[in-house]
């Protein structure tokens, strides 16, 4: 009796299975409908949507400059020119001639937030209080924590009239405009309307940017739609809808693109790129302000204090070979910035592959194959901008061993390596390493040079991990910082950079090229030489 029932059930199951399998074969995969761009990000969660995003530069790229604007924006329109500053919510700005700590900004008129309220000086001050005034009701510790470290020069701010505000910096600082690109403006009216709750604001944010956030499912999806009333008519988005999907696992991103579940992936795995190309995917890349170096320790006992050792290391690395290892996805480095940049200068020391010269220099200092230099470096297994750290470091280790530098690794995960940067080489978490391998962006002179090379930036103040202390560096950087004429400032920075390369201050290895992979129907994207990108010209070809 039981058996009869089982047999009947099995027959039904067989029929159901047949139907299901045929449906599966016949059904089309989930394809994009029309003008929808689905982007897979490397972040593990949707970056904070309230105004000051987290998740580093990827946060700014997708939930910062899309939904919001800064007083000064980045010019992301060109793939060939160096990406510079362009007026955003401020039409113009100038530094006071007498007291160069005072900056006056003229705000753009006729701009409204997504909720319809007006952009003016009151809204600007309200946002500054949100980040700087702990007593204000709108103060948000999280947003403050995300952005204050990026604007070290800020001292005071005040409203002058409805469309004019004034800042006073701690010291004269010509790089203040660069710092302001990180300060984004959220709508005070929307915050009030939502009961003064930043969590509610995160789900229904309102900014002035070219996109509006229309849906947020934490950890899974964020949906952006165009802001038809955007103040820059040339940058009203062409796409109907963008869906942002967190996908931290690299192989998952690759499969998602190849199975047409997403249209655009950030940072594809380099070894998956040939396969993606053979399937017709478009791969875009462009060098941008990124550097992959070893930052040396200058403390007592560090072998890198000897200039011969530093130069030898720079001459020992076969950067062309490394480029081949990475499938062409890098540019050899010979300094912090690229040789085509106005800050590069004219160094005399040529950073190149010359192992014989390296060995000669080491021999001068008493080192050789029977007496190798013993050094240890902190590396990570992965991380934003770190490229392929394990493969690259092992390659460098081999190169250095060939000339007589014995390199040992202390391997940390990215979430441990990054905080260690500010703690410095003397900190126990550095485990006695003589160098650290952390990549960074050099969008402005402070980020490029000052925070590493100025003696005042030694831990815990900045990222001078190796306690670099050179009076000439300090002098040049201090001078550049108060030179308000751009050309004159560029010349001083070029002099500084050339000096730094002549000193072989760090081991220069590579610049990333920021590869992205997308479906062939995604068009209009211009990859700027910047960590941030403009999504407004992108569209889907039918």
């Amino acid at each position, binding site marked *: 009796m*039981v*058996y009869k029932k089982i047999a009947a059930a099995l027959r039904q199951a067989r029929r159901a299975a047949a139907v299901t399998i045929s*449906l*599966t*074969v016949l*059904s089309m*995969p*989930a394809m994009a409908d029309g003008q929808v761009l689905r982007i897979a990000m490397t972040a*593990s*969660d949707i970056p*904070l949507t309230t105004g000051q995003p*987290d998740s*580093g530069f990827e946060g700014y790229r997708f939930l910062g400059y899309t939904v919001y604007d800064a007083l000064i924006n980045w010019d992301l329109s060109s793939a060939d020119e160096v990406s510079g500053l362009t007026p955003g919510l401020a039409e113009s700005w100038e530094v006071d001639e007498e007291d160069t700590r005072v900056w006056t900004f003229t705000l753009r008129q006729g701009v409204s937030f997504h909720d319809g309220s007006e952009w003016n000086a009151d809204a600007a001050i309200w946002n500054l209080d949100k980040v700087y005034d*702990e007593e204000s009701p709108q103060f948000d*510790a*999280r947003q*403050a*924590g*995300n952005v*204050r*470290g*990026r604007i*070290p020069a800020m001292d005071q701010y005040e409203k002058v009239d409805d469309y004019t505000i004034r800042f006073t910096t701690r010291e004269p600082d010509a790089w203040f405009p660069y710092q302001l690109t990180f300060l984004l403006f959220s709508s005070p009216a929307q915050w009030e309307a939502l009961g003064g709750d*930043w*969590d509610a604001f995160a789900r229904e944010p309102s900014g002035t940017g070219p996109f509006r956030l229309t849906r947020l*499912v*934490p*950890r*899974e*999806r964020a949906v952006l739609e165009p802001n038809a009333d955007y103040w820059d008519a040339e940058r009203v988005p062409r796409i109907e809808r963008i869906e942002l*999907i*967190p*996908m*931290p*696992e690299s*192989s*998952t991103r690759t*499969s*998602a693109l*190849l*199975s*047409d*579940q997403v249209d655009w992936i950030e940072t594809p795995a380099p070894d998956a790129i040939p396969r993606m190309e053979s399937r017709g995917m478009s791969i875009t890349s462009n060098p941008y302000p990124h550097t992959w170096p070893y930052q040396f320790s200058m403390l007592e006992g560090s072998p890198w204090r000897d200039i011969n050792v530093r130069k030898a290391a720079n001459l020992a690395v076969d950067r062309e070979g490394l480029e081949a290892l990475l499938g062409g996805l890098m540019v050899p480095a010979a300094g912090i910035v690229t040789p085509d940049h106005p800050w590069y200068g004219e160094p005399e020391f040529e950073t190149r592959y010359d192992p014989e010269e390296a060995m000669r220099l080491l021999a001068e200092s008493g080192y050789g194959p029977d007496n190798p230099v013993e050094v240890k470096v902190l590396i990570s297994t992965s991380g934003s901008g770190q490229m392929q750290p394990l493969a690259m470091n092992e390659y460098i280790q081999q190169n250095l061993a060939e000339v007589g530098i014995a390199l040992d690794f202390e391997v940390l*995960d990215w*979430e*441990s390596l*990054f*905080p260690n*940067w*500010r703690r410095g080489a003397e900190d126990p978490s550095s485990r006695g390493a003589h160098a650290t391998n952390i990549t960074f962006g050099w969008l402005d002179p402070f980020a490029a040079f000052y925070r590493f090379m100025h003696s005042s930036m030694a831990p*815990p103040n900045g990222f001078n991990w190796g306690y670099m202390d050179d009076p000439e560096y300090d002098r040049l950087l201090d001078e550049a910082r108060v030179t308000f004429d751009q050309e004159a400032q560029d010349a001083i920075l070029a002099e500084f950079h050339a000096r730094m390369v002549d000193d072989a201050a760090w081991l220069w290895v590579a610049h990333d090229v920021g590869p992205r992979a997308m479906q062939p129907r995604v068009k209009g994207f211009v990859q700027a030489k910047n960590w941030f990108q403009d999504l407004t010209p992108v569209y889907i070809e039918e």
Partner: protein
Amino acid sequence: MSTYFLKRILYVVPITLAVSFFCFSLVHLSPGDPMDAVVSADAPREVVAMVERAYGFDRPLPEQFALWVSRALQGDLGLSAANGRAVTAEVFAALKNTLLLALAASLIGFTLGCTFGLLAGYWQGSLLDRLVTGFAVGGVSVPHYWLGMLLVIVFSVELNWLPSSGAGPGSSNDWAFEWAYLRHLILPAVTLSVIPMGVVTRTVRAMVAEILAHEFVEALRAKGLAEKRVFLHVVKNVAPTALAVMGLQLGYLLGGSILVETVFSWPGTGLLLNNAIFQRDLPILQGTILVLALFFVLLNLIVDLAQARLDPRIQRS
């Protein structure tokens, strides 16, 4: 029966306290600074100190633990350090998704496991037995992270039959019992089911072989009982052990889905834990581990009680 029931319920209290203590200590003793989840490395000292005060990380550890326990008892597991959302809401939303996946995987795994185990046990020593055993061992040995990626390459990328990631076309909040969402469940559930399938097959096969060798089976056959009725007797004798194993496997599925969820971007507790570990998001870690551990305890309780019902010998002891 009721005293047994009551005693088992009461045991939950000290177990929960011990579990929460271990969760808290492990998470705080491990390397990494909780502040790394909240503020970026650029943040100056005063900003870090301010945020520490706001989150209560500057208080001594015993005080933090006491506060956490007292709040947890009221259902408040604190706020996530990385994004400020309530931990309770995050954990239970993720748990719902993991339960869905675990139940689907156990359905596949247990059904196949019992079937194969019974077949192998009945036809012990035959080719069928050897095939089934080989299959089961393979299921237990294969790293399911690798298997998941392989299934994605075959069924998503090459054949384009099934999606490679996610819980559905919209989001897990919109989940409904329809094909658009079920197709996202297939590959992760199959990947996750191979280990329980292997374990259950082996257990059931061993139990069936053992029971069939007992004298009472021979006695029943000698009495003239139909083979189908003998089969039912065998099943009843195998059931308690099989149930215990299946209960444990369901518990492991809840906690062990971390790698499969990461490969498939399935928004469950595994992915939540994975991200929290990398972000050093201590409140999420504490809350999720506690909830999963409590679930495991509850599951064990249910299995014990079910076993007691099925097997009168346990009740009497």
